[in-house]
């Protein structure tokens, strides 16, 4: 059986892309220790005024290298095992915004190209013709322009906000799947192991089939 058409077909099927209606900033996010630390600080001190990250505990932040003294400052009287909850109670948030700001634990996983989405959203604020603040990525967004991108005076200020946004997006990417680093590390070892195992199995197969293999063709050949 000629397998090429089928392989091509499968490739085609796997390439079915999801339509993306929003043009996102083409930014490469890093998740190195410094980014995560800076991102954690911004998220805890700025974002958490309104948002929660309920699947993350304060203790988890120690694992990404947040300083214990900083953490104590952020925690106040909360327990190390307490989840990262918003400072604004839900009913108060509902009264001010009409809805509870979404939990950020899975924000980057819950959007197509989530990291880039968060970055583009935070740097997507602008002032429209009527003087209202709006957002390119999320028109009609309720969230205010917390970083002040829409009224940043200088290029330098804008650049600073872009760096902040990249740190936040990087941190949220970590928060969406804290085990992703471990997963990739184990994955490399697993694939290496499987490649060696499969190569050995192939040699073993050849050895067992040695006496049969000279005639693998069909009993009836197509001429």
């Amino acid at each position, binding site marked *: *059986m000629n*397998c090429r*058409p*089928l392989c091509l*077909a*499968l490739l*085609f*099927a796997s390439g*079915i892309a*999801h*339509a993306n209606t929003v043009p996102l900033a083409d930014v490469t996010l890093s998740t190195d220790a410094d980014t995560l630390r800076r991102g954690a600080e911004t998220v805890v001190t700025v974002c958490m005024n309104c948002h929660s990250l309920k*699947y993350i505990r304060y203790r988890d932040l120690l694992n990404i290298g947040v300083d214990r003294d900083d953490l104590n400052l952020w925690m106040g009287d909360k327990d190390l095992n307490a989840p990262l909850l918003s400072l604004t109670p839900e009913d108060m948030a509902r009264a001010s915004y009409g809805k509870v700001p979404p939990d950020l*634990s*899975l924000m980057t*996983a*819950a*959007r*197509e190209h*989530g990291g880039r989405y968060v970055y583009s959203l935070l740097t997507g604020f602008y002032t429209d013709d009527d003087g209202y603040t709006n957002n390119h990525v999320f028109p009609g967004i309720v969230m205010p322009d917390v970083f002040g991108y829409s009224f940043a005076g200088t290029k330098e200020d804008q650049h600073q906000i872009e760096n902040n946004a990249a740190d936040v997006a990087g941190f949220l990417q970590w928060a*969406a*799947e*804290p*085990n992703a680093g471990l*997963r*990739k590390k*184990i*994955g*490399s070892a*697993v*694939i290496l192991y*499987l*490649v060696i*195992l*499969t190569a050995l*199995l*192939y040699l*073993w*197969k050849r050895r*067992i*089939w040695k006496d*049969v293999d000279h*005639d*693998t*063709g*069909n*009993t*009836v*050949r*197509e*001429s």
Partner: protein
Amino acid sequence: MNGTMSKRKRLQKWIDLRFPLTRFVKHELTEYPTPRNLNYWWNFGFLAGFMLVMQIATGVFLTMHYKPDAAEAFNSVQHIMRDVNYGWLIRYLHSTGASAFFAVIFIHMARTLYYGSYRAPRELMWWSGQGLLILLMATAFMGYLLPWGQMSYWGAQVITSLFGATPVIGDQIVIWLRGDFSVGDDTLTRFFSLHYLFPFLILMGVVLHLVALHTVKSSNPSGITLHAQDNIPFHPYFTIKDFYGLGLFLIVFCSFVFFMPEFFIEPDNNIPANPLQTPAHIVPEWYFLPFYAILRSIPDKLGGVIAMTLSILIFAAMPFLDRCKVPGGAQYRPIYRVMFYVFIVDVLTLGYIGSQPPGGVLTTVGEFATFIYFASFIILPFTSQWENRLLARKKDLPKEALKLIRDEVEERYGDSAREDMQ
């Protein structure tokens, strides 16, 4: 040394007096005759069995940490992903495993269609496989509700509402399936219960499938029953070949599990189910997309549901529809070969259309692809008989091949068929 050997022998004898272990191993493995000319497309049955075991094993461990409760289901999945030791691995194996299972099954079916393995005497294998496919689809569908994300919830809402198209008692059936007026906690708990039950029904179905296989033996690319000397024992030849194929499969599978696990998880499913907010675009999992596209291609709701059901069940008719007397698969059958590839391309087209929002030119293409889908089956009796006449006239096959084909046809279909061929 000698002592342990005889101890082993004695144990074997002790067992064999009470249970036919040695006879079973001989009959089903070490002396089970398998055609020597099987190619790698014949590996996928074993791979399907492997996936079943993998899904059951990972599923059992997931169940230890999962909570089938509308208020807790989403949280418990995050608990598995973050707190349970290697919970993320177990869950990604299971979620990617569902896709891999379907990929393997679809290839297994495509192989059967290409090589005509559904034909006599393997009809019961084909039909038991058809039943297994339906059970697998039901299991996958119910499992997809369990993470209780937006796509889980709305997918279940849409699919269960399809049963409302049943005349007269439609509404009652939908409520009976959901246990409520809309998908809710009751739906989740019953889907969980059945999602745990069905794999074991599948396991029983697989046993029947294998008993049938070991009665009729494997088909092979030539399509004719091989002489005894062309069969080789399953073990060690095909055990090692299956394990080598498993290694190749696992490399691909683990690449997805470890490096692209979110490939098969819709972003929307990382948002907890919200009955008050419909996602912009509800899509089923990729393995349902072709059938979903057929459903949407029929303007009438009841008609769409019937067409979708038929599109799955129609495979069972293959042994009746295919009248070709030439043994072997599409490689010996010029018309069927073209039809096979057209059908594969058609299914992939339908899959793409199912993944897109409806409307515009895609709807027209979808209707055309649906037509081609059913037409492929409906014209088969005519094209296959035409093929009989065409191939009987063909003179350029090697004489040995012609003789083998004629003998086979005669043995299987009697003298009248032989006259047809001449």
